[in-house]
């Protein structure tokens, strides 16, 4: 148990043969947005300019490094891929056009399907499924829009929206993540 706690992407840890999924990087690279992954030189240009990395212990280069090493569980089940602020600074500066933000999106989708989505994102998705919006419509918002001269909001057609979400497989993804929530409780 103590050993698993130590095993974080942040520090150095022994990589065991059984943890390495050699095909993982190819699975990621095959997805739309993941094409750039295999070009990574691990030069650290992404980490050097990362606004999240400047304040907490988060390194885009290490995420890429872990994916390239094949540490599938490490990448998908920890919080590392959920810390990216999607500011696209690394994407602009990457000398190899790895497109880190797109790679992270691919990884987040993979993690969500396995029930490892960060709870904030799960809550947000539930909100969208229920209301068709990321945040509830309140009287204050309506008032502000009126003051600013913006047209009033229309309520989306929830049944249609939910049909699209169902077809896209959101229900299964949410179910996988909620199940995990129950387990961890």
């Amino acid at each position, binding site marked *: 148990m103590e050993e698993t706690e130590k095993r974080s992407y942040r520090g150095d840890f022994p990589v065991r043969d059984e943890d390495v999924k050699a095909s993982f990087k190819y699975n990621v690279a095959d997805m739309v947005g993941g094409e750039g992954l295999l070009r990574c030189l691990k030069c*650290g*240009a992404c980490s050097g300019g990362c606004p999240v990395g400047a304040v907490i212990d988060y390194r885009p280069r290490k995420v890429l490094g872990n994916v390239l090493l094949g540490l599938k569980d490490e990448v998908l089940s920890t919080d590392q891929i959920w810390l990216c602020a999607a500011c696209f600074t690394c994407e602009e500066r990457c000398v190899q056009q790895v497109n880190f933000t797109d790679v992270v999106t691919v990884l987040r989708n993979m993690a969500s399907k396995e029930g490892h989505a960060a709870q904030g994102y799960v809550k947000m998705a539930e909100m969208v499924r229920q209301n068709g919006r990321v945040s509830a419509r309140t009287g204050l918002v309506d008032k502000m829009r009126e003051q600013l001269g913006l047209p009033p909001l229309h309520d989306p057609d929830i049944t249609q929206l939910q049909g699209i979400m169902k077809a896209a497989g959101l229900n299964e993804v949410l179910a996988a993540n909620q199940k995990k929530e129950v387990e961890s409780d």
Partner: protein
Amino acid sequence: MTIADEKVDFGSMRPAETAVVVGGGVAGMQAALDIADQGYQVVLVEKTPSIGGVMAMLDKTFPTLDCSACILTPRLSQVSRHPNIKLLTYSEIKGISGEAGNFRVQVLKKARRVLEDKCSGCGDCVPHCPVQVRNEFDQNLGYRKAIYIGFPQNTPLVYTIDKDNCIKCELCVKSCQRDAIDLSMEDEQLEIPAGAIVIATGYELFDVSQYHRLGYGRFKNVINALEYERIINAAGPTGGKLMRLSDGKIPKSIGFIQCVGARDVQKGVPYCSRVCCMYGIKNAVMSKELQHDIVKNVTVYYADIRAYGKGFEEFYTMAKERFGIKFIRGRVGEVSEDSKTKNVKIWAENTETGEFLKQEHELLVLCPGILPPKGLKELADYVGLEVSVDGFIPIQYPASNPVDTAVPGVYVAGCAESAKDIPDSVAAGSAAAMRASITLAQGGEQ
């Protein structure tokens, strides 16, 4: 001989015995000397007022730390005094026609407004000239007059009047005791018959201000490597005293950033420039050599150190172990300036430890990569060549004929083909000279 000699009649030169070398850097000079030593005539065409190229600007060479000028200067005079070499400095190629064994090279000889056969390079005119402008040879850090030589070993030792800045006050004309100045001189069109052509146009540095985040052009204490080279050069604008530009202080801590404009697909330079690692290390070592007591912290931020040549790896190890230079693997993310001290702060990840670094340096040197020079594409067009995707001159069979272009009779040496260090450029110069003289000896047949 070119200096103080009667006018050369280029039209009467025999193409079967003449080669044209384009570019008077270290590769072009070597090619010219090697062709000339075999008894052929060589016309060496150089764009700037002096031969010598970038090597003349450098302070030391890697990995031996030999003085660059001490190696180059004897070469310069050797070229200028060689009976078979005709120097055409301050001249540009404007067109090439014909084929191997019988090319016609059109050269525009720009008016330098000083008679090459009369000027002795005494410099009496200089104090009289009222116009002072930045010296391009010193990377615009120092100053020169409108009548100038870029550096003391200017070859040929003939002054040049820069047309754009001259105010035609004629004070130099009055001061010249040899009547060498002719302000009414016009550009001259020459046609040179030649049997073979060697392209040795060299390179230009990547414009590092394209990396806005690294602060070049925004912060005074962020300079590029060639500017640093001039600052530590004894003949440079500071007389060889290492100092920073904001306040003239000797920096206690210096950072070097490698791979600026090299191996960057986004910026259109996917290739490795080969020399930056070594000149970066050399510059780092030189700061310790020059100001050992003051310079305490020298850090090199690199992506990979490519010490591929003879003695290079040993030099890298020596820099680490004997000179205590710190090497941090990680591309620099952000550079900012302290508004009071004008020190430079950098953000980078040490990719070997995962540590996020926020370090302060008093001087930051960016080490730019190598680009094909402006005008190389036009020159390639003249001879009927197409430049390769990276913009350099392509070689048809690199493994068997490494200096032969696709056009018979046209050879390439030095950085016009790809990034090269000095020994490789000289070797390519010699190789191109040999190939060119074979073409001449066989009358254009190969």
